[in-house]
């Protein structure tokens, strides 16, 4: 891996532990325990897990928004504690919110200036992002009046504004209508084509299954399963035989063959011999 690409991975998390200290006399809470993960350049990495398992906390640590209790995080090889590490990252936090008194366009201009963009380039890019996220009509309305899904879209526009090489999306589809959520999925697939790395969490596992190259499943602050999506959801002791245009007679013949000469082998089912990410999630979450 490192032999092929001299470039550092997009995200490295090494033995991250985050303990939230409570007030006096209350027990501290460990949100993330000894978590390690790597997101390689150009891949789409999905982080899934039950509510409160530490996904958002991990993302905030990667962005340098929370200080790790122990362990290290880095973006493109630069430690998250350094400001430069954030220059090529776009972050969409969960339930994003913005200055109420600004309108959509002003909000994007504000964030663009923070990324050292300016002038016509910034204006054009802001308009482009508003169009991309379907907010053109709301561009001159105050953010205070935005609905949940609109805020989410604005958050996405803000994250993509400065053409980052890595986008970190914390539940990008939360509160977004089905059409919008499909569009976000297509957007992520588009990133993959452009070589933009994506780290994403979502509870919409069907969509995650469609976009992710690799997934990590977290529970209680730990990584419990991690791997390439196709490997994770493949079933080990089963074999897939993909036939095209097979007639029912042929299938019946194959079945008969397995029964007569299979030496204990049997046809489990025909169709799609894979578990779904959803099944896997439930299985892991139950453990």
């Amino acid at each position, binding site marked *: 891996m490192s032999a092929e690409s001299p470039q550092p991975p997009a995200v490295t998390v090494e033995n991250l532990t985050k303990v939230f200290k409570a007030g006096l006399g209350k027990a501290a809470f460990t949100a993330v325990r000894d978590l390690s993960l790597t997101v390689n350049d150009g891949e789409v990495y999905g982080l899934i897990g039950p509510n409160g398992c530490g996904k958002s906390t991990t993302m905030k640590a990667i962005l340098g928004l929370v200080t790790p209790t122990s362990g290290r995080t880095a973006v493109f090889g630069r430690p998250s504690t350094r400001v430069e590490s954030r220059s090529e990252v776009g972050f969409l936090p969960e339930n994003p919110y913005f*200055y109420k*008194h600004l309108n959509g366009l002003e909000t994007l201009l504000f*964030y663009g200036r923070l990324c050292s963009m300016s002038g016509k380039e910034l204006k054009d890019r802001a308009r482009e992002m508003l169009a991309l996220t379907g907010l053109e009509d709301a561009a001159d309305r105050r953010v205070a009046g935005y609905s949940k899904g609109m805020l989410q879209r604005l958050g996405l526009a803000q994250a993509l504004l400065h053409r980052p090489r890595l986008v970190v999306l914390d539940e990008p589809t939360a509160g977004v209508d089905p059409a919008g959520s499909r569009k976000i999925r297509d957007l992520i697939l588009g990133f993959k084509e452009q070589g933009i790395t994506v780290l994403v969490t979502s509870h919409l596992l069907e969509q995650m299954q469609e976009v992710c190259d690799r997934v990590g499943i977290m529970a209680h602050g730990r990584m419990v399963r991690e791997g390439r999506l196709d490997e994770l959801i493949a079933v080990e002791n089963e074999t897939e035989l993909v036939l095209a245009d097979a007639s029912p007679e042929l299938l019946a013949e194959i079945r008969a063959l397995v029964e007569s000469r299979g030496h204990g082998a049997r046809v489990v089912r025909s169709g799609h011999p894979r578990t779904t990410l959803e099944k896997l999630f439930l299985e892991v979450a139950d453990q």
Partner: protein
Amino acid sequence: MSASFSLPRIRTLAMATVTQLLRMKIMAFLLVFCVIVVAAGFAFPVMNPEQQLKLLKDVSLGALQLFSIVIAVCATALLLPRDLEDRTLYTILAKPVPRHEYLLGKLLGVLILIGAGLVLMDIAFSGVLWLRQSLVLAQSVAALQQEGTATPEAVAQLKEFVGRQGLTWNLHLGVVAIFFKAAVVTALTLMISCFASSTLFTIIIAFLVTILGHGQGLIRDYFLTGHAGVVKKLLSALLAVVTPDMGVFDVVDNVINGETVTPGAFGFMAAIACTYLAGYAVVSHLLFVEKEL
């Protein structure tokens, strides 16, 4: 601590702070101020001319000082908790924005707002004072003429006397001193809000420290010369250390009495204000870097 300072970025943050505060309708106090000044200027025509002008200055500069400190504390105390609760801080700090630039932007924003407010109030106050002064002069000259004692010398003397009690550059220096004080209070409040857990707590502590700071000279004397017990001495020493010495900026009374502020005294005030600002800003940064978001 990386020492990057991007002026455009700080300006962006400061302007966002100014608009944020403006849209909170915080400048409404300007209207209240104008009403107070006009009332103080024209409501008591029975007093003698000298007293009238003095009262106008007393009330106006007092209100100016009170407003600037209240704005400094309340506006500043609202800023960080707002951004934290609204989670705007996440998106801002997820951009390549160093935390010290964010803090500086907030501080500058409040200072710009207070500065602009003081300029507007100074203009309103100067206008009323000048009107009142011309009126007083005209009345007094008329009175002299009625008595038949309006010799050129007497009129000149009257003019000089009223002029000293009226509008002078010195008064503006008094307003600048008020700005210094408000700036120190702003930085102090920002520092408190970096570790405080609630807005109310910030406001209360900031006012408390500000009020104590006005008596810091007394506390210090007590510590240095008093014959109190060890505990009291330690306590007073602690108070003297944690509170800013607001007495340094109290030139308003002298200004009202017509005494001039010397360039030396003014420079001293400016230097003290800058020292406090820098000190509080550095401590704020140290606190804010460690802050859990």
